[in-house]
């Protein structure tokens, strides 16, 4: 088989599985098929991982690229273009790993409409994998939106009491951002297309090669960043997250926290930074500050939640703040840390949601006051919980530390942020993480067994052990041996940072050249103001307009 097909296989295998599911008669068959599909996908993604060679440069094209043209009409360079590079290889692996885990975690949790649930789950996986592998902006957008539909149903049908509110909020919130981004995509496509004489292009590499004028960058950056910031979610756009997490069934929460949120941070790295380097750097302090507020704010709110799931949800706000901070530091260390932290957060928070879900399955409550002293009745579960909590709190030797440390280290030396105070504030998140996580552990697992029903609680079943074990192993392995993972991402992050710098300088040069010509006319103005954002029909778009067939010429 053509190795390039492997990428598409990993993306679409779950979709095929979902279609197959629909034809099956019994819930049992549905479950096993779903499990089989996800495992097969995981195996395929391992092969993908093996086939990916970090030593081969991805500066001109991703590895294992699969391109199908002819999706859009002539003159519109939108195509099916997927591939693997250092930025997404781990995320794809994480997505496919969580696939079987989520299926297993839903085995008994979901008690109605199995067919629909598992089919949606598999479609969701296709969407997410597609988001991570897409190298075409429109394709990315398609997958990005595609993830909303299954998630909407998963929260809305199998969720908790307030599921409808949560589901609608989730979709609408994301939709506002992503539709605005679509406007940006269209604009960018035409601008880049005009610059390169192809009409309209959203090929990532074409867009990367296009230096956007400074003024335009600003509004485009904010349109893109808004969409991703909502997804991340960045303070103060986070309020959909606790609702969605709490109401979603366990599987949904795991996917949501594990990979769905990463679409936001991934988008920031993949698109916002390299496309709009100047704007991104100008906004870095602002976004960094929001990220730090998110870190602290999320942590403080997590501490006061009576609901264990909500606590974990707010912890995501806090943790993702680190990732955003790392992204906007513009240093190799922080960028690498951000990438690895995305994976780490997926593993540890995914594990936390799984464990809280196991408790919920047993007692049908998420309130911590309904538990207490569980360490006696469920020691294995407790052990896994403590491990996950520690990983999440960033204990050295477990995975969470690696990312957090590198992010903070990189952010500290960042000349773009240039604000050690900010990083110092972010570091307090390390203290606060311990505060709220240990609070949860002690409220839930320590103390006396006050509720008699908790005493007879069943410890982890082999199924549950099976789904937790890989995550636990990864927590430790990635804590002590993160380097093999970092090596996968390093060439790409280096390439990205170099490109960002080159483009940044190029954009400034272009702007100066422009002011230079103005200066010839009026020598007194040294630093003419930047050209304003051509949001409302400008020279550039007028030029574009002339390029296209226009009946006004008649």
């Amino acid at each position: 088989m053509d190795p390039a097909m492997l990428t598409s296989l990993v993306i679409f295998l779950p979709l095929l599985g979902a279609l197959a599911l629909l034809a099956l008669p019994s819930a049992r068959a549905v479950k096993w098929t779903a499990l089989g599909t996800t495992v097969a996908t995981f195996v395929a993604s391992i092969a993908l991982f093996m086939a990916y060679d970090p030593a081969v440069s991805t500066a001109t094209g991703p590895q294992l690229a699969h391109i199908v043209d002819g999706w859009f009409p002539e003159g519109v360079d939108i195509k099916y273009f997927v591939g693997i590079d250092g930025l997404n290889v781990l995320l794809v692996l994480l997505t496919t790993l969580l696939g079987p885990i989520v299926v297993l975690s839903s085995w008994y949790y979901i008690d109605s409409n199995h067919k629909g649930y598992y089919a949606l789950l598999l479609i969701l996986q296709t969407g997410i994998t597609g988001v991570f592998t897409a190298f075409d902006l429109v394709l990315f957008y398609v997958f990005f939106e595609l993830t909303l539909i299954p998630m909407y149903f998963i929260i809305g049908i199998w969720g908790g009491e307030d599921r409808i509110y949560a589901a609608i909020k989730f979709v609408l919130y994301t939709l506002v951002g992503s539709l605005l981004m679509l406007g940006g995509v269209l604009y960018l496509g035409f601008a880049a297309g005009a610059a390169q004489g192809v009409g309209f292009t959203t090929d990532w590499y074409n867009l990367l090669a296009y230096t956007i004028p400074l003024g335009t960058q600003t509004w485009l950056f904010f349109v893109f960043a808004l969409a991703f910031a909502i997804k991340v979610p960045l303070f103060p756009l986070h309020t959909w997250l606790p609702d969605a997490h709490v109401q979603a069934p366990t599987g949904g929460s795991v996917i949501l926290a594990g990979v769905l949120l990463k679409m936001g941070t991934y988008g920031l790295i993949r698109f916002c930074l390299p496309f709009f380097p100047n704007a991104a750097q100008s906004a870095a302090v602002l976004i960094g500050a929001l990220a730090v507020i998110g870190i602290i704010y999320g942590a403080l709110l997590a501490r006061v939640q009576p609901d264990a799931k909500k606590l974990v949800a707010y912890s995501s706000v806090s943790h993702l703040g680190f990732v955003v901070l790392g992204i906007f530091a513009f240093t190799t260390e922080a960028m690498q840390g951000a990438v690895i932290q995305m994976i780490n957060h997926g593993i540890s928070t995914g594990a936390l949601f799984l464990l809280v879900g196991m408790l919920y399955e047993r007692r049908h409550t998420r309130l911590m006051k309904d538990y207490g002293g569980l360490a006696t009745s469920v020691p294995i579960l407790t052990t896994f919980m403590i491990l996950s909590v520690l990983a999440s709190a960033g204990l050295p030797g477990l995975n969470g530390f690696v990312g957090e440390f590198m992010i903070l280290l990189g952010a500290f030396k960042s000349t773009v942020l240039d604000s050690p105070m900010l990083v110092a504030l972010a570091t307090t998140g390390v203290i606060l993480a311990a505060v709220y996580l240990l609070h949860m552990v002690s409220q839930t697992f320590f103390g006396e067994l006050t509720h008699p029903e908790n005493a007879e609680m069943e410890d982890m079943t082999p199924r549950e052990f099976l789904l937790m074990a890989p995550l636990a192993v990864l927590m430790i392995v990635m804590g002590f041996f993160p380097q093999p993972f970092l090596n996968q991402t390093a060439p790409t992050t280096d390439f990205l940072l170099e490109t960002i710098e080159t483009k940044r300088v190029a954009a400034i040069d272009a702007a100066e050249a422009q002011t230079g010509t103005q200066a010839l006319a009026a020598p007194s103005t040294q630093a003419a103001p930047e050209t304003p954002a051509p949001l409302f029909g400008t020279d550039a778009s007028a030029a574009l307009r002339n390029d296209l067939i226009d009946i006004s010429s008649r």
Partner: protein
Amino acid sequence: MDLSGYFSTMWADLPAIFSMLIVGLAGLVIVLVEAFRNKHRSIPYIAGGALALGMLWEVFQLGTPSETAFFDQIRTGGYAAYINLLVLGAGLFTVILSPPYLRRMGRNYGEVYALLLFCTVGMIMLATSNTLISIFVGLETMSVCLYILAGLLRDDAGGIESAFKYFLLGAFSTGFFLYGMALMYGTTGTMYLPEMAGAFPDGATPLFWTGVGLLLVGFGFKVSAAPFHMWTPDVYQGSPTTLTGYMSTASKAAAFASLILVLFFALPPEQWSLVLAVLALITMAVGNIMALRQNNVKRMLAYSSIAHAGYIFVALASGTTAGYSGALFYLLVYTIMNLGAFGVLALLEWDGKAGREQTLDSLAGVGLKRPVLGASMAVFMFSLIGFPPFGGFIGKYFIFAPAVSAGLTWLVIIGLLFSALSGYYYLRVIYVFYMQSADEVEAAQQVPAGAFSNLPAASTAAIAACAVLLLVLGIAFTGVAGVTESLFVQAEAMATTP
């Protein structure tokens, strides 16, 4: 006087109006059948057969070059074939869905089908017209038939009210429409659209623009653009549901197609781009904002159709061929989505009140009970929001992209924000369908036992086909997009070579 030259030309041009002929003839046949064999079972089949035959014919015309027929009165060729297919298809869908629905309403008469076919004739005339007179005659034929169909449930206070409102406002707007034509004719001295563009070598006069403005008012009324939209919700709510679907799609498609012809062939794109942009803005705003509070699904869909007219206006405002072809593509997608949505509602109506009092809540939990209808409705709703991988997304791409390239980014961004807002009310339908159960709604809203117990297979299949078509259009749309684009490219080429 020798007129034989005329007659031979007309004879030779008959194939150009094949579908108009066959549909009109079928209408006449139905009238006759109905006169002698009241409510004969074959009537829907005759109607459906004629429409299908027309569609079959038009499919083969898709690739043909754009020409005119009947002394330059109407256009033929790919463009006409495309829009005729749309209109005929909408008619066919309605004919498939109507018999069981009308039977339930006690209105399954041959006249209905005859009027439907006559209406289709008018639409074809409208959508393919090359002169102002053709537009007028086509538009009026279409409108008169629709006035009657809207009043089909005349014993129902709501039914007759909707017909009255539709009629009176329609006639009122016709006055403006005709005035506009008069002014355009008077200032240019011609009724032929392509000749108008050349009438003003040094820029058009205000009187001409006034005429264009009044013409736009007339079109705006037919496509229910704000502020000419006021009739839409009332009429949609009161009309028989399957026919509402027809009204909201075919008539809109025909009117838009005609408007595109006027814009493309007759008008130098000066002032009108701004006017269309403003209309687009108001229309999107009114449609989306008003839809938010609706609890009646039909009324909500009425406002939604207003909003979609606004989106199409965005494409038209760009004033480029890409914009026009995008609008045409969107019309196709929109037609499928809306037909399907109204079709689902028609099948789920149970209170015998023509759906005008049926609230959304009464449909709680239907999605899981009726998987095919539920899934189809979900597809329609997601597509209406503009979610990939459904046609609605690609449609939105094709209407917004040209606007961006024409420098209307601000309008596009507003449009996208309104799309996001529209998510609220479309998602509401889905959650009621899937996420609420019937016992969660008030007793008054609950479905009586045995309601919509047996769904007609043909109707269900037609709806499912719509859903599948949307999915296909969302993924493999190049062919269609190519067709819509080539129409204008050809015409462009023709126009530039004298």
